[in-house]
């Protein structure tokens, strides 16, 4: 597998095919014998902003950090063990409920969307 080509920027789906986010960055760790391996997928605008870099990237990451419930929480981290298969998307073996909630989604849902009539109706 090529991390840049097959993993980075790919859509992550949970076990039901629901979108979780993009692979905004990938975390490597080392084995006991010193060989690096893919440890986790990093998801969310904080990881994305830090990857984009520059003033724009810093702004994206900073906004994401301010929105998150804990300023120092760091980006959403999905251990690579949870990846079931990589094809045109990165498919997880778990349901997205077990992953941390994206802060912006939660905030907008609770503060705006839920207050509009019909927010929970299927169209």
């Amino acid at each position: 597998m090529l991390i840049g080509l097959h993993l980075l920027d790919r859509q992550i789906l949970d076990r039901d095919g629901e979108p979780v986010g993009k692979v905004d960055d990938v975390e490597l760790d080392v084995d006991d014998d010193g060989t690096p391996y893919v440890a986790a997928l990093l998801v969310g605008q904080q990881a994305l902003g830090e990857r984009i870099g520059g003033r724009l990237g810093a702004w994206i990451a900073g906004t994401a950090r301010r929105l998150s419930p804990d300023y120092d929480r760091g980006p959403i981290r999905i251990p690579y063990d949870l990846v079931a298969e990589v094809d045109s998307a990165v498919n997880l073996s778990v349901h997205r409920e077990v992953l941390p909630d994206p802060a912006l989604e939660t905030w907008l849902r609770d503060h705006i969307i839920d207050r509009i009539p019909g927010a929970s109706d299927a169209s």
Partner: protein
Amino acid sequence: MPPDRLDFPLRVSAVMRRQVRDRTGEVLGRIADVETIAGPDGRERVTAVIVTAGRWGRLLGYESDEHTGPWLLERLARLILRRHTTRVPWPDVSLH
């Protein structure tokens, strides 16, 4: 064990575009991608890096053999991007 002085855990974005030298200290280019192979335990271990001497980091996918055509784009990609692309096995990589 090479590469020297990397602090793990480490983000791939921190490795991409880094300059790579061979063991004699000669500059080979910059890292465009990182190759891994899954072990029997399912763990994706790093085996090599793809190094390109060109300015473009992104290879549009033409570094992979699954990818061929259209003719003109492929020729362009191979001409501009792949001419100076080499695969360097991880133990031989030296980052500075």
